[in-house]
């Protein structure tokens, strides 16, 4: 009986309180709090030396800093981060960084050159997925203690040979080169993991925020630090909520329960247009959409067929309808925003021209070609459009639709005919895309060089292009380097097994009172410390 009473009371109270719940009254989020909705189930780890997915790197960008940073307003230009100055010695292999003084970690520990050197060494020693961004300079677990050293307030990094300094610097702006509080991290070491387990649920950085809580597939909470070296963030708390469904995000945004929605579909964005309480902020992203034509298939190795295909795609039609706002026409492998990116998009839908090229190919038409596509709405829409226009020039595409991982296995196993793929740069330097689209040192099956997209699609760029790409990454003169990448991109665009089509665009919708949010462009990640409300 007692229990029944208790329950009845609780239920009655609950019903009463529902009417007065702050939810019902609150039309907007608190002024010092930013509530962001995004799909964050891509996160595998938030240890900055392991994180390699967009959402995890976004998070880390707000709690950690790198030695040097890319200027968001000028592609390819560097600005100081935790280092006040940096230089490369005449030998072209010794880089030094002078660490700023007076910066503290969230633990209160002062930032030292030892932390900076220790962090970069940690990346190499743990050797998690993004470690190659640093190990490509000849760093190994065995030699890293000699290659990366510190003295006073200076960190020295030695490379195994000479590279373009801009290449080394750009790589040091990547998330994997974030500096952590080595003292705190090593205090939490377990079974020789260098604190990896602990950093999966905690942060130890110099960033504007400190991680208060992280729940995979649910969200995280960031809290602003007092006395941050960039100046205190205006927003005290950042709540990230994992909301995978665009329509749900849109509704929350319209109601004012979230401030920023980052996973909206073109339909949602269209629905939001004209809403005075909401604004939409466009930006570019780093990914590119392309077709890979397997060169083991004779028809696809025919240069006339390749060229015909480039003229038989309705680039702008797709951009303006199915890809509205999320992808823009871009026919070069370096995304806009990268050092060396070019803007020329020479191809457009021209069926007659494509037909003529097909006639010159010497093939008996129509030809039948397999088309491996991942089973998702956007990709299926693109595939259908291409299937339609290709059919008009005598290429019948047979769709092979599967899960993303399955399609990737087919591609890595060189078992596709044509596949529709996206590629995202691994670090903010042109070499990341050039090395995979324009390089393939050994095209044999045995080489199994799955890291090179050119290998995956069995395309041999030839000695000249291989050499040019290798030279570009060593070119000391930045202006010359930019020129070289322009040339490499044109060659790949016009004569390769790739058909480059689109670059990612980003559309973040936010409440009208939110300003200063920076999504990160093609080379950087989201910044919350710049936001005001």
């Amino acid at each position: 009986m007692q229990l029944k009473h208790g329950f009845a009371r609780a239920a009655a109270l609950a019903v009463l309180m529902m009417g007065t719940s702050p939810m019902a009254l609150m039309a907007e989020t608190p002024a010092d709090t930013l509530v962001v909705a995004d799909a964050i189930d891509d996160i595998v780890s938030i240890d900055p030396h392991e994180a390699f997915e967009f959402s995890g790197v976004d998070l880390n960008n707000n709690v950690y800093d790198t030695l040097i940073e890319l200027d968001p307003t000028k592609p390819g230009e560097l600005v100081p981060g935790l280092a006040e100055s940096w230089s490369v010695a005449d030998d072209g292999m010794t880089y030094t960084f002078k660490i700023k003084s007076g910066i503290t970690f969230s633990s209160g520990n002062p930032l030292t050159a030892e932390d900076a050197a220790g962090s970069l060494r940690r990346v190499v020693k743990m050797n998690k997925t993004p470690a190659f961004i640093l190990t490509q300079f000849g760093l190994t677990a065995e030699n890293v203690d000699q290659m990366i050293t510190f003295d006073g307030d200076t960190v020295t990094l030695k490379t195994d040979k000479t590279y373009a300094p801009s290449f080394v610097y750009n790589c040091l702006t990547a998330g994997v080169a974030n500096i952590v509080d080595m003292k705190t991290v090593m205090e939490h070491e377990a079974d020789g993991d260098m604190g990896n387990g602990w950093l999966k649920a905690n942060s130890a950085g110099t960033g504007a925020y400190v991680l208060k809580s992280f729940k995979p597939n649910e969200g995280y909470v960031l809290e602003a630090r007092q006395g941050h070296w960039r100046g205190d963030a205006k927003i005290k708390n950042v709540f990230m909520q994992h909301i995978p469904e665009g329509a749900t995000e849109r509704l929350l945004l319209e109601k004012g329960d979230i401030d920023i929605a980052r996973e909206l579909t073109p339909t949602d964005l269209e629905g939001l247009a004209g809403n005075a309480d909401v604004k939409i902020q466009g930006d570019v992203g780093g990914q590119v959409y392309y077709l890979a034509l397997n060169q083991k298939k004779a028809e696809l190795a025919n240069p006339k067929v390749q060229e015909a295909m480039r003229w038989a795609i309705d680039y702008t039609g797709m951009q303006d309808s199915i890809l509205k706002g999320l992808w823009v026409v871009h026919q070069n492998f370096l995304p806009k925003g990268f050092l060396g990116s070019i803007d020329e998009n020479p191809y457009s839908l021209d069926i007659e021209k494509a037909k003529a090229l097909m006639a010159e190919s010497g093939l008996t038409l129509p030809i039948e070609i397999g088309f491996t596509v991942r089973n998702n709405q956007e990709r299926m829409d693109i595939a259908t459009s291409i299937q339609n226009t290709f059919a008009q020039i005598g290429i019948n595409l047979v769709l092979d639709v599967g899960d993303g991982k399955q399609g990737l296995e087919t591609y890595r196993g060189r078992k596709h005919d044509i596949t529709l793929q996206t590629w995202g740069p691994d670090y903010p330097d042109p070499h990341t895309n050039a090395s995979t689209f324009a390089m393939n040192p050994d095209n044999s099956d045995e080489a199994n060089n799955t890291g090179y997209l050119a290998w995956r699609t069995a395309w041999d760029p030839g000695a000249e292009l291989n050499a040019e790409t290798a030279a570009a990454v060593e070119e000391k003169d930045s202006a010359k380097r930019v020129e070289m990448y322009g040339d490499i991109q044109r060659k790949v665009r016009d004569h390769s097994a790739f058909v480059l089509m689109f670059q990612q665009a980003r559309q973040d919708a936010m409440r009208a009172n939110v300003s200063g949010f920076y999504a990160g462009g093609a080379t950087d990640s989201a910044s919350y410390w710049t936001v005001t409300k």
Partner: protein
Amino acid sequence: MTGVPSLPHENRLLRLSGQIGLGLLTLAITLLGLLLVTFLIGRVVPIDPVLSIVGERATEAQMQAIRDKLGLDLPMWQQFFIYVRDAMQGDLGTSIRTGESVSSEISRYFPATLELATLGTIFGTLVGVPAGVLAATRPGSIADQIVRVVGLMGYSMPIFWLGLIGLLVFYGHLGWVAGPGRLDPAFGMMMEFTLKPYTGMILIDAALNGAWDVFANALSHIILPAGLLGYVSMAYISRMTRSFMMNELGQEYITTARVKGMPEWRVIWVHAMKNVLVPLITVIALSYAYLLEGSVLTETIFAWPGLGSYITNGLFAADMPAVLGGTVVVGVAFVTLNMASDILYRLVDPRART
């Protein structure tokens, strides 16, 4: 009532323990079978789990290191044996994707699902049973038609669409309930940092902590998704109740009761209901178990971090420990509910005791 003489006391105890033993054996065999099938499916899907850990750019050496660590090169029967051995000790392994222990991940996701499914089943039963009875006692009437149409909608409308419309109307336009998620961020903080966790079910934990503002907020968040799941199970329960009840109402003992002049409510709710209850318990238990699997679509729309999305995410990443762990939990829930409904039979139907 049944005419079977009551058995000596020890004999019944013996029988009961025998039944429990048999139940446990069934549980073990069912789970083993479940594990085997899930394990085999996990191994035949053409997805390489290693790829989802190391990413696209990894070298062959990095991939091999992971393969060795996970024991993926061992013969399949050996991998299965190791898995079952660990599972029996309560160790469901480590998630391939996150490197976290599967047991601790599930202990975070399952309470969210349990809370939602329980509330949904309560809704479904409280509405579904009376609606079914109403329809059965007035077949062909307007009430019957309404119950049928409403039930049919619950069956046939995609839950995804229903959920979005529900959100649009009750949250977007009317503002009667809170939006997606389990709590508002501010209350979420409170829950996480100041309250003591007991069960992982927010309603219960908030009540135990006496944090009624958190409770109210959680309730306003859960009401819509639970109502939605409740609607779907209501559709099923009301249809089944109707047909069970119709069947009973045609029996001779009902006619006898009516001839005796017994009030109609008593005929229906006491005499007929007693017999309807037996199959109905199975129906309710099954629909509860179904909700416990976690409804992926509902969880997606309502940003509800439950078991359904956990298993689905695991599948997409070829994270077999996560998928197997989730399957074990669902399997245990299924078998337990089955056993519970068996025990309930015996309480409501003396014939089942023999």
